[in-house]
């Protein structure tokens, strides 16, 4: 029996998303085991089940041959299982030693005097053994991200964890730090600790992992030895062969009308609040009557690019052109120019949850010209419009006056989509338009997007769901680390290359 065995694990989220379906997973002591998959493949959910932050619906977990019940992270830590999340669990105003000590203390320790010197001593010895160098007296808020990550790992080692779950640990590190980090992982291996390494980067799997388990859409595709496996094989396993996805929708990809670039994005650069380039010189054109898909793993600058085009994020370099005329980087002007925008996070950007359906139907709408008013907001025509849209788009709601947050996710998405289409836009930007929706709602939204294309509108579809991109797009671009890595027509898409590009491997001419 392997040292860690997870058997028949299933998890369905309350919104109906099947995150894990009958997953079997195993790991041996002293191995680095990669967990590979696209966004939403269930990697993080599986590890959260193991760490006790998510309760599983079905399945059993065996640790060192014994069946265990893990109901909370503290249960997990008692069993020697520790997890480093993508967002670190640290208190910025505390020193490293204080953060580590906080990990240890519990309610019954309040009377015990805290001996920080002892904690520091132990941190130093952990640093020495593992190679995770960090100053125990440094304030966490003054540390670089890579060092904060070390603190998070040290916290777990301090508690005696010997099975470490690392959720996309390299996403915050630069290449040099990654190199050092892999050395640390190898040292763990020598100490017979087990590392489960979640990633979507194919090269990293091959570089550091002994074995890899590939997940796709909540199911295990396979577990294999990394020796003798090629990057290509992994890429195909990760994103699927894709052929069935292409066949499912009959709509053929279209040749765009020549010389009619509806939207031109010219060398756009977007910085985040720290000044890091999230979008690094992106250029492309979208023509009327085509769906231009941008694929890629979440967090590679797509969100910033989309918000910049929509006029929300600041474009620090580069320009946008709408029908040949420059489009100013201002949300108000973008709204007035007839650009529809379906944002990625419904209840964060696209809706005001407490507002009624009718009130949400005018969010981000140019009310002045639509209802011919500058100041007074007459609800009668707004409600009338809302009722029409509810009927036209078959939005399931008792009436237009209920708070939009009481609708199901699919119907919330329909409210946004209906609203954006009702603007009769020239261009529509759809960012993760079917995220978290069930099959019928997904299908409905997909058909709407295809219909818009057939009406001659330009559609920018940005999605981390590769199937969705393949089903709908006429041309496909892949975005990685803020750059467009390649653009090709759908017929010419090479699945292998697509997977490689998404996995962060530069597309090279072959």
């Amino acid at each position: 029996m392997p040292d860690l065995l997870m058997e028949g694990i299933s998890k369905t989220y309350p919104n109906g998303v099947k995150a894990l379906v009958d997953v079997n997973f195993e790991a041996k002591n002293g191995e680095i085991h990669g967990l590979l998959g696209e966004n939403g493949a269930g990697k993080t959910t599986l590890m959260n089940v193991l760490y006790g932050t998510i309760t599983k619906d079905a399945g059993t977990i065996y640790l060192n041959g014994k069946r265990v019940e893990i109901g909370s992270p503290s249960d997990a830590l008692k069993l020697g299982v520790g997890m480093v999340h993508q967002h670190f669990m640290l208190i910025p105003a505390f020193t490293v030693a204080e953060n580590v000590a906080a990990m240890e203390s519990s309610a019954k320790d309040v009377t015990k005097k805290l001996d920080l010197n002892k904690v520091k001593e132990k941190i130093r010895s952990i640093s020495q053994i593992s190679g995770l160098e960090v100053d125990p007296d440094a304030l966490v808020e003054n540390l670089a991200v890579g060092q904060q990550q070390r603190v998070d790992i040290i916290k777990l080692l301090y508690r005696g964890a010997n099975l470490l779950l690392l959720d996309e640990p390299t996403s915050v590190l630069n290449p040099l730090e990654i190199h050092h980090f892999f050395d640390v992982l190898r040292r763990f291996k020598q100490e017979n600790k087990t590392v489960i390494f979640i990633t979507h980067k194919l090269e990293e799997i091959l570089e550091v992992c002994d074995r890899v388990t590939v997940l796709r859409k909540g199911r295990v595709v396979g577990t294999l030895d990394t020796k003798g496996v090629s990057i290509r094989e992994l890429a195909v396993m990760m994103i699927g062969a894709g052929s069935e996805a292409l066949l499912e929708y009959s709509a053929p990809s279209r040749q765009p009308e020549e010389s009619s670039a509806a939207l031109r994005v010219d060398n756009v650069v977007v910085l985040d609040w720290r000044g890091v380039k999230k979008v690094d010189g992106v250029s492309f054109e979208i023509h009327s009557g085509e769906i231009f898909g941008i694929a890629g793993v979440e967090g590679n600058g797509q969100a910033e690019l989309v918000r910049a085009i929509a006029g929300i994020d600041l474009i620090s370099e580069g320009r946008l052109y709408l029908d040949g005329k420059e489009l100013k980087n201002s949300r108000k002007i973008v709204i007035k120019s007839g650009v529809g925008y379906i944002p990625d996070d419904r209840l964060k950007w696209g809706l005001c949850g407490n507002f009624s359906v009718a009130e949400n139907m005018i969010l981000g709408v140019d009310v002045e010209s639509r209802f011919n008013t500058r100041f007074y907001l007459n609800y009668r025509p707004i409600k009338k419009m809302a009722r029409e849209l509810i009927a036209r788009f078959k939005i399931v709601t008792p009436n237009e006056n209920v708070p939009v947050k009481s609708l199901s996710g699919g119907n919330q998405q329909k409210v946004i989509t209906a609203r954006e289409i009702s603007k009769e836009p020239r261009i529509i930007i759809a960012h993760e338009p079917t995220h978290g929706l069930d099959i019928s709602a997904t299908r409905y939204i997909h058909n709407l997007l295809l219909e818009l294309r057939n009406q001659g509108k330009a559609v920018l579809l940005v999605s981390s769901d590769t199937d969705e991109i393949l089903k709908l797009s006429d041309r496909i671009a892949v975005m990685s680390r803020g750059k467009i890595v390649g653009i090709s027509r759908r017929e010419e898409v090479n699945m292998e290359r697509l997977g490689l590009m998404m996995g962060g491997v530069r597309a090279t001419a072959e």
Partner: protein
Amino acid sequence: MESGQLQNKETEKPKGGTSIDFQKLAESVILVLIGFGISAVVIQAAGYSAATVISTLVQSSFGTPSGLSSTLWEATSLTMTGLAATIAFRAGLFNIGVEGQAYLGGFMGFLVGYYFSFPPVIEIPLVIVASALGGLLWAVVPAFLKAYRDVNEVVTTIMMNYIGSYLVSYLQTIYKSPYGNAAYTSQVNPSAQFTRLFPWGTVDTGIIVSILGLVVVYFVLWYTTIGYSIRVSGINPFAARYAGVNPKRMTLFVMLLSGSLAGIGGGLFTNASIIGHFDITTITGVGLNGITVSLVGQIHPIGTLLGALLVGAMVASTPFIEIATGMPPQLVQLITGIIVVAASVPGIILMVRTALNRWGRRKPKQAGSDR
């Protein structure tokens, strides 16, 4: 077709953009009753008769014409400062500066009344405009610091309250009344004072101004495009960006509007029929109580009026309870405090939620023409 599930069917009341929510009203009434209950226990435990205290409280605030009149008078300026707090809360801003803004507004109202003696039709609007300006002036610094430097407005407005308090304390010595040893100022010209509505009570025409203010705030919040933007900003700052709201301009507009309303609240107090002079010790609390009023009113304009009546009743009845029962004033304040705190629970929850909404506000650099 997918099955649209409605989780809370009870929210299906015919509610448009506007909202007068009877469920919320019932909530508040029950909480006030709970507050009375706790107070009764405290009163009994302290060795007094709860029945006497509560009947005196109700009698002296609502039971007699002059008592009711006093309650209404207290509620006049509280409604206005309450509205100031409400409109800021609605935009997700915590204008604790209504206190200082009310001082400055009150003092400006006094200055107009001191220097000018036009007929009331001119004088009274002048008083209102001047006090609005005074309050607005005191909101300028926090408003700009918040909008352009993201300095927390709670901190800056509290600082401005202190500065305002010391400033008007000094200024009032310049206009010190020649009579007696009192520190307060001379009386304003009678034309600058609001006139009594009834001969038997203190309530004056100021209450008309407050009601007008309430109607305006209500209309702006629920029947205008700018009010829509204010409400979106308060509930979901991200959706506000999506809707094209310029957060800087919104912050400036709402802070200055809130300051103006608070200033008018101060003017209604200073130039009231029974006051007519500026005195920092009596005006203290008009703004901070306005914040309480707004919370009691669940951050809704109409609730604000009801909250002002409750708090006004507490203030108006305090001396009567002391006389009727011989309770020490501190104990009276404790029991009225319990009632008010109980009533503000839903408002406090709303406020905390708004504060939590703001946490995620640090976002990538925002586009727009303003930089």
